[in-house]
């Protein structure tokens, strides 16, 4: 079963372009949105299970140069129109 989550990212000043470029390489990410709010980037992650989400956030996202903080929000239910 697919697990979907939003990961809110804070990025080191001046690194946003490089981080977006790195993020676009991952097939797990369906939306990479640069925002003008409390977070610098919002990414939408879709993976097979919770263990893979944990691995993706801790071993992949957090190792990208420029990402200083992550916060994950797991999707329980969604509606699209």
């Amino acid at each position, binding site marked *: 079963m697919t697990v979907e989550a*939003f990961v809110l990212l804070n990025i080191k000043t001046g690194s946003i372009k490089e981080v*977006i470029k790195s993020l676009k390489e991952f097939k797990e990410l369906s939306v990479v*949105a*640069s*925002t003008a709010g409390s977070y610098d980037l919002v990414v939408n992650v879709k993976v097979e299970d919770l263990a893979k989400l944990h691995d993706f956030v801790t071993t992949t996202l957090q190792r990208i140069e420029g990402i200083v903080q992550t916060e994950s*929000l797991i*999707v329980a239910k*969604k509606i699209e*129109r």
Partner: protein
Amino acid sequence: MNYKTLALLSGLFLAINIVFDSYNLQVVFSNIYNYALIGSWVAVILTLVIMFFFGKKLDTNFKGVGLIPKKSRGYALVAGFTGAAYTLLLLYLLKIYDPTVVGALIPLTLLFLIIRDLYYTKEKISVLEAGSFIIVAVGAFLISFKGGRFDLMVILTAGIILNLINAVYSHFMKLGMDCPNTDALNYRLFITITLAVIFTVCIFPQTNLSFEVLSQIPYSIGSMFFAFLGYVLYLLSLKDGKVSFVSALNLSYVAFTFLFTVVLAFVIPKVFLLELNSTFWIMRGLGALLILVGIVILVLSVFSSFIFIKCEPRKVNYIYEELKKLNEVKKIYQTFGKHSLIVLLEVKSEGRLGNTINQKIRIIEGIKEVSEARIVKS
């Protein structure tokens, strides 16, 4: 394959569908009621095949073929009736006009949907919208040029009546989709079956079905196959791309329809009759281009924003249902975390974004905190 390629391919297949329909109506089916009736049942079968093979991939909420809730069935019935009227009129127009005109005028539905949204959101029309409406209107006028004069009848039928019916159809599609426990694919299946039943009951006396029709069925399946392929690719491209950008790329079908018709006018001139004078081509080409530019501006002028909402305990489901009622809300995610809900808003101007958040979202009972993350790039 990335979402841009998928969206462009969906435009290509939709164009093939329009030109294929036109060919079928000119050459294969002398009776449009035969074509409508056969096509409607072919659509039911293709919908079932798509649901069976791609259902879970297209819609994560899909759990198998089943009956939709009573309330959405009511909306689906109305959508079925308007869908039937739209299909018949479209086929009739494709029989009497060439696909470059009909194909270019179909996107005008968006103008009626914007007027509907303005009515519901009680917003005033923006300068950009008004400008785009004028560009599209001039384009529609130019594209109607035929035989040395402007054909106002094609603007009235293909430009206004056809798109008004399509807008009503889209409106009821949306109302039904917003009902609780309604999944998109079963809802679409119900509408497709309703439409086929309406055709069977209402237009059967007008048909002249015989064994000869058996040899015509593959043509109907062929055309419908491209329509469904276009639709499926459009839905798949929406999974990764922004709705506005994908819709703009999908509009490439106007250009593809134009291209295919021109090529076919040289290959089989008896079927695709087009005038061979420069004024005709300039008027028609410029008309299609203006319509495309106006619609693409409207489609791309969308501001998107994620809204993070903290809710009072036990109020989450109530807020979720209230948010579903807002036209501007495109996606709602219920999450485990410090924000109970994440909402994707899409509005047509920056000012409307603030109005939606302050006057429609913040006032919902049970919302404790709202923070906004405007999408700058996605």
